[in-house]
């Protein structure tokens, strides 16, 4: 991809023209983090350009209390818990996970690829209660709402969800407010933006003088978005730019938003490492409250402290790099993770660990023939 190399050169040249400036950007989404290290972009970026990963990994931001709820649900005899694969290995209290044999007996926990698969399991097992662990951001909320809609119309009453959806704009507001986040701009997540559009980010340039660029996930798209961000910063131009127009409509996906609004309303929610944030989660509306597994089985959420020493909270808040965590690569590895950031395929710690960011930069000491 010679095109990609040209883009890299262009970025280096642009950053080089402003040698006195330092550029620190928050990449909100975990998929951005993974893509950056997977394509080795961090090794080709100029030194004065730094990317910090943010709270954009849906599994990572779920507090320990949520995992405990899921574990307790899996312990009820006629309940089948369905979940995305990533959540299976996230430790709850006492480092128990859904993948533990005790929890994941033959029928109890099943991995699905979509909420509709969970609904299908509910249809096929009318004598069981099927609970879907509804974790995700704005991107996956419409699919859950669709599953609920089908469950309602087809009267599949043995289907419920454990609401765990989190919303991106409120957490960005919280980060911007906190004041100790030293960044010059935001690389906003492409997938989330396909649903919500551009408007929900407008408070960042308006109230906090931060440029926002919505970027895709391929290496070209990320570098393209960074080029725009650097240009905005250099010109003190605070606005929102959509650098992912092939997928993101400026006004979002109204149909999806309406469907979500029919079943859910924003509510305060707990985030790992960030505590409770106003209006940052989705709860089921009053008339669908029975679809909430926590209500149906009377398993309320309890706020439990994060595992001792775990740095996931600071990593998610953009305050630390994964390698700053004292447990990184030692106590906490993908085979025996302490925190969720080491589990999820979108977790920054997992990405850093897998792609060898254990401190030393990987640059070969031999002549490169290409």
């Amino acid at each position, binding site marked *: *991809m010679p095109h*990609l*190399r040209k883009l*890299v050169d262009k970025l280096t040249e642009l950053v080089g023209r402003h040698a006195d400036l330092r550029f620190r950007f928050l990449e909100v*989404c975990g*998929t951005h983090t*993974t893509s950056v*290290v*997977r*394509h*080795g*972009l*961090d*090794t*080709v970026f100029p030194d004065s350009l730094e990317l910090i990963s943010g709270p954009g990994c*849906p*599994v990572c931001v779920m507090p320990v209390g949520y995992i405990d709820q899921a574990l307790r649900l899996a312990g009820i005899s006629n309940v089948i818990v369905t979940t*995305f*694969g*990533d959540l299976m290995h996230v430790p709850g209290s006492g480092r128990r996970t859904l993948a533990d044999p005790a929890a994941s007996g033959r029928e109890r926990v099943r991995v*699905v*690829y*979509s909420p509709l*698969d969970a609904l299908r399991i509910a249809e096929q097992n009318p004598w069981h209660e099927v609970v879907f662990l509804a*974790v*995700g*951001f704005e*991107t*996956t909320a419409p699919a859950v709402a669709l599953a609920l809609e089908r469950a309602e119309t087809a009267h599949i009453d043995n289907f419920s969800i454990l609401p765990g959806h989190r919303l991106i704009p409120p957490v960005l507001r919280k980060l911007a407010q906190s004041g100790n986040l030293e960044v010059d701009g935001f690389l906003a997540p492409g*997938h*989330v933006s396909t649903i919500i559009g551009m408007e929900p980010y407008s408070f960042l340039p308006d109230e906090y003088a931060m440029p926002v660029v919505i970027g895709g996930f*391929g*290496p070209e798209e990320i*570098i393209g978005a960074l080029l725009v961000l650097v240009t905005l910063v250099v010109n003190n131009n605070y606005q929102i730019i959509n650098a992912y127009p092939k997928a993101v409509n400026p006004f979002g996906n109204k149909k999806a938003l309406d469907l979500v609004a029919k079943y859910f309303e924003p509510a305060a929610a707990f985030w790992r490492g960030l505590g409770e944030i106003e209006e940052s989660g989705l709860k089921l509306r009053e008339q669908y409250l029975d679809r909430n597994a926590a209500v149906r089985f009377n398993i309320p959420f309890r706020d439990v402290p994060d595992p001792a020493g775990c740095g996931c909270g600071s990593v998610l808040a953009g305050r630390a790099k994964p*390698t700053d965590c*004292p447990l*990184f*690569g*030692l*106590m906490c590895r*993908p*085979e025996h993770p302490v925190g969720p950031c080491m589990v*999820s*395929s*979108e977790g920054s710690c997992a990405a850093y660990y*897998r*792609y*060898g960011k*254990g*401190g*030393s930069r*990987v*640059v*070969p*000491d*031999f002549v*490169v*023939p*290409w």
Partner: protein
Amino acid sequence: MTHQLIERVFMSKLGNPILAEKDDAAKLRDSYCDWCFTTDSFVVKPLFFPGGDIGRLAVCGTVNDLCVAGATPAFLSAGFIIEEGFETRRLHDIVDSMKAAALESGVQIVAGDTKVVERGGADGLYINTAGLGKIPPGRKISANMARPGDAIIVSGTVGQHGAAVMLARGEIPFRGRIESDVSPVRALTSALLKACPEIHVMRDPTRGGLATVLNEIARQSGVTMLINEQSIPVSREVDSLCQLLGLDPLYLACEGRVVVFLPAPLASKALEALRRLPGGRNAALIGEVSGRVPRWDEDVEWEGARGGGTGWRGEVAGRRGEVAWQRGEVAGRRGEVAGRRGEVAGQVELGIELAGSVGLAARVGQVGQVRQVRNTGQVGQVVLKTTAGGYRPLPMLAGEPIPRIC
């Protein structure tokens, strides 16, 4: 996981000089002829997938293991474990495709066994095959033969089989059809050996894909290699599936491809030979062996005040990949730190300072008696030059890749 299981359970208990070579097939030397022997079990789900089925896979898998050892496959055995109630019609289809695959690869199935287990005791059907092949005298192809200066060639697009099977399970919402590449590589390997008999290593990148096989070769030969991501052939369908799910095609299995290491001057000759064949049209030069890393060949088990543990001798002071970069001095001292059997691993703490990296801190305080030191092989590293021109290690992954949520 499997890798650790092999090292810590099977190699330690069943180890012998032939097994210790850790190649796809064992070489049995006799006074008048060299034989090559291998076995493999097949538990693929679903049993039928686009491009093949478990029967074709069972024949090709074993035949290919013989071919990449440089042998001419001759005889196969087949063992079937069948769940009670398995449809006879499907069994017919599977055995028919075994027959076709055996014909295609020029082998005879000369021994067999059938066991029926009760319902629920097996998931449909499992097949085990074992194979015998002949190696011409003097041929030395082995995963520990990679040498600095070798060119690395792959015979075709990677990841097709893994992607095809994943799709055939029907769990992923992806429109499009991907055919498995399952086929015997006999034509490819014999053409290669005819064109360049000096080949150092041949492997078929099955489970764990290209990335895993390269890592295994790097470890067994104790070398560092540099792979150019841009030149790795990946079909468009596999590429878009991987982008959609956040997977890496380099970790998806192939069942009809060969990875070849040979002296760089012969690379163009080998590529020419491969590209002339239908299964090798997309053959490409993907990288080179760039250097040698120090031997790291002891696995240390220790017992201390705060519990015990196991680790590589090289790893005790750091993670495996890192060792390769620190090279000589640090690596050398790390080894000492871990100690030999019966010695006190008392200087572990010193190791942290030497390494100056994250590796050891967790093991501070695990100072204690070294119980056992085992030979386990060597450590090497694979570095990937990405399409963006950056560098990163191409690691060995533990566990199955998980598709992302958003």
